[in-house]
């Protein structure tokens, strides 16, 4: 008989890796919680529950485990461990009781990717796919951009470890995987960006 415990949650792409100009990996299960509300109303409770600073416009804050991203003037996205998302969403909803806010666990709605390698190459791969300004001064660590990746919506940021994180909707995970690995294929170097020298 069917046993749910032997059927764990499976992300759109499992364990995929690609080595080219940069390494591209499917990041696997990632907790994501959409928070909608006026920042003045929800900022403090969210900061209290998560222990994270409320991000400024285009900002993303994090503590290495969780991250809180600005998504629009009245929307934030909390990244967390997949397993804790449901409970965390409930606890956030609880702490926002009485406020006009929407908390919803959307951990299954998106696919996540991690790209690692020299920073100038990460920017180069991105620049092949998005019209957003990805120069170091325009996309520093701590900033998230919601833009497009070729023909679909996507968001990306550089994390504290210097890795490039990319998310897209789950249904187009295969498409975005092909985009990212295509943009990172050996031989397609542009050598436009340069690593910022210390």
């Amino acid at each position, binding site marked *: 008989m*069917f046993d749910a415990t032997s059927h764990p949650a499976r992300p759109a792409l499992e364990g995929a890796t690609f080595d080219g100009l940069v390494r591209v990996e499917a990041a696997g299960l990632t907790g994501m919680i959409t928070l909608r509300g006026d920042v003045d109303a929800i900022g403090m409770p969210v900061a209290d529950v998560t222990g994270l600073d409320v991000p400024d416009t285009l900002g993303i804050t994090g503590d290495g485990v969780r991250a809180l991203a600005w998504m629009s003037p009245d929307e934030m996205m909390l990244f967390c461990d997949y397993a804790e998302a449901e409970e965390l969403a409930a606890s956030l909803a609880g702490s926002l009781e009485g406020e006009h806010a929407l908390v919803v666990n959307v951990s299954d709605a998106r696919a996540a990717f991690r790209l690692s390698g020299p920073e100038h190459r990460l920017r180069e791969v991105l620049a092949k796919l998005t019209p957003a300004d990805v120069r170091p001064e325009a996309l520093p660590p701590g900033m998230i951009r919601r833009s497009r990746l070729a023909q679909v919506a996507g968001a990306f940021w550089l994390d504290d470890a210097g890795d490039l994180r990319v998310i897209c909707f789950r249904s187009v995970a295969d498409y975005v995987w092909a985009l990212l690995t295509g943009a990172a294929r050996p031989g397609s170097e542009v050598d436009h960006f340069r690593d910022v020298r210390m």
Partner: protein
Amino acid sequence: MSKRLSTGGRLIDRDTSLRFTFNGTHLRGHQGDTLASALMANGRTLMGRSFKYHRPRGVVTSGAEEPNALFGLGKGDRFEPNQRATTAELFDGATTETQNHWPSLETDVGAVNASLSRFLPAGFYYKTFLWPRSFWKHVYEPFIRRSAGLGKAPDKDARDPDDYEHFHIHTDVLIVGGGVAGLAAAKSASATGAEVLLVEQTSHWGGRAPVDGAEIDGMPADAWIEKTVAELEAMENVRLRTRVMGSGIYDHGYALAYERIADHAPEGGRPRHRLWRIRARRIVTATGAIERPIAFAGNDLPGIMLASAVRDYVVNHAVAPGDRTVVVCNNDDAYRTALVLDDAGLKVAAVVDARPQGGGTLARTVKDRGIRVLQGKAIAKAKGTKTGVTAVGICEFTGTGDVTETIACDCVAMSGGWSPVVHLWSHAGGKLTWDETEAQFRPDPDRAPRNEDGEAMVHAVGAANGHFGTAEGLADAWDAGARAGGGTASGAAPAAAARDEAAMMPVWLMPANAKIGLRRKAWLDFQNDVKVSDVALAAQEGFTSVEHTKRYTTLGMATDQGKLSNINGLAILAQALDQEIPAVGTTTFRPPYTPISLAAIAGEARGDLFQPVRRTPMHQWHEDNGAVFEPVGHWRRPYCFRRDGERTEEAVRREIDRTRHGLGMLDASTLGKIIVKGPDAGRFVDMLYTNMMSSLKVGACRYGLMCSENGFLMDDGVVARLSDDTFLCHTTTGGAERIHAHMEEWLQTEWWDWQVWTANVTEQWAQVAVVGPHARKVLEKLGGIDVSKEALPFMRWTEGTLAGLPARIFRISFSGELSFEVGVPANRGRALWDALLEAGEEFGITPYGTEALHVMRAEKGFIMIGDETDGTVIPQDLGLHWAISKKKEDYIGKRAQARSHMADPDRWQLVGLETTDGSVLDDGAYAIADGTNANGQRNTQGRVTSTYHSPTLGRGIAMGLVLHGTDRMGEEIDFTAEGGATRRARIVSPVFYDPEGERQNV
């Protein structure tokens, strides 16, 4: 005859030897050759045939403006037609073939001799096609088809094996053109601290300054270029790229550039082309100038070239276009060609200068070397064979063309002056001004393309700005570069000698009063065979606007887009109209500057990446189990699942039959799911839907209709109330994003003070419809949630853990059967699907696709957005009055539905249709009525919106909109059918199956 010189050639590497084939013949060239220089080095001057008359053609230029030397390059999957030999870099193993001739380049039966060409005048096509009509199909079209187009299209089975990509960058300053002006602009712009991208279309820097013998900062041009490039390369804020052509400039500093990465080195694993999509604060166009040919009789013979091209080939590639050259000109610059040829030990037979007073310092230098210079003279006509010019006849420039002397030659270097390359400047609206002194259109700095800040977005510099002296061009570029960088120039501009040239004299036709016989042979557009007489004829026949003349004569419509012919042509037009040149104006400059590959425009969007395909969590299972897919939005949904040997319609019938009599399951994950939450959520959904939603109880579901402001039905779906202040709105598959945007628009622009938040959670949930008499049994078997009739009645929902998976179950039915839609988090979707397959095995569970879904809903008379609706249908047309609240004060579309046309009783109404013979009505068939309308068309009284064969009922069923339909039950009407036949159908209720709803309510 053209040949390779034993010394010189600044761009070629004589230590290399590259093999290539030309129409199957094996030839050799050097690294640094273009295809054109390599062919001339091998004595090949005949390079193609013209478009209209198939006249023999040789190379005219040494750059992107080349109209004649067009080739098919590569073979098989990499074959590409219409490639310019002058810009194609030679590589080892290159395969080239000539175009537009049959059976061979040397013997082309399509060639039209000069006497016959009189019967193909300007506007030939327009005139000919008018009469007689029958000739169009049998004579003209086949004739034009065969002769139109230069290169042949690649083989239909060829598949481009290369990769292409886009590259988006932002920069402060984009500089187009890496000649000395572009380099100087880059230096001064980067000195301001601005970020600079400098692109050059060829593979080398410096433009023509080294060929023209410029000295800069006391150094030969080559040395200055090398030093400057090295300095720029060392700068953090500068990026330099060769083989990148500035292709187009658009609004707001957006520019496209076309990089040819691997054209000269295929199969290296690199992308072939890259399209740079550049957002620049300021753009500097340092695009140089193009030399103008001179219109004289026979000027299209091979061996007659631009004077600048002749010296380019000698200096850059050590190729002599001929042994004995006549230079013909109206300006001093062309004398440089005489000096270069003389330096190379090649004979200059004469310099024919149209100016009676002759030239200045350069002319004196030429005379001092003992070269013959004729002043106030002209070439009356050039004589030659198909392989090239053999002599020119000399006459007085002011005369009508009586030949006084014949000079033998195998090359003519012509120069009618220079035209700044104003294309990029003009793309985004920059205006031009006519410069009398140089007889040129140059950019008008007071009417530059502007940025959002009102400041000039584009600065033209150097020769592109009409400055033909090295010193003047450098000073101009130095100053504009700094301004583009947002500062002022620091330090002095690179120094060079001031221009020392006598004034040029405009020459549009040679000789000035050439008789008609000569004008008929004086070419303006070499590729399209447009001559001076054609433009004059166009003017005479009333095509007096320059744009009309262009279309009528095809002047400037060749692949070079008039780069050589434009100014000469409009000057001739001005003469014919007795107007000033600026009054005639130019045709419109449009991107791209030269043709770019379609593949570069497509970038990565080809093959599997042509369009994103959205996949549900169960998509892989569908692929593995015989799914025939159909596109629904960007999703691919299974239309049906074919089993071994089954035809598609057999699979659909089986799926319907198994579902109605056993158990079916459908991947419904694609349905839109939008959460609406907040104190005003009830009020909001009442406005969105035509029916009352705020009265819905927590735990209950209701079907609702959504209309546009204009009252038309735009989406439908089931709404579930999740809590007091939260609704879950299901939309159609294609409607999720659109309806979410619709909600946000109303909330953000109209009801900004309402407290409502929305979230599109479509992709968070995988959803499976479990349908059929055994549906409850299989869910009970999975266990965990009470799905009994009492616990979960029809149109209710519940949540819990089903088979160990967190689940929501909605008891709703789109098939008329006992039905549950089970939603689980998307990452558990496949687990749910597998669990249902396993548990349902004993009930014969059958996955079904969208066609079974459609047939089953049609059997029940349920409408489908996109079938019963097409943007012109209101709910009232569909008999959905029950879903339109009379109690609500307002909803989106209510006012529109009260308009007289919407309330008209003559609007067609939805009915069921049953063919009298049980056959299936055609999709979209019209119900015909008596008589014809004003256009003589048969009158209609309705149309089919959905039509299927119903396996349940064993006959064709359909729904349709029919005039007064609901009052005509039982009446029989005729519908159109394929092949002009008609099919008779009876008007019935649209609910064909289980009208009491007993099957779903168990």
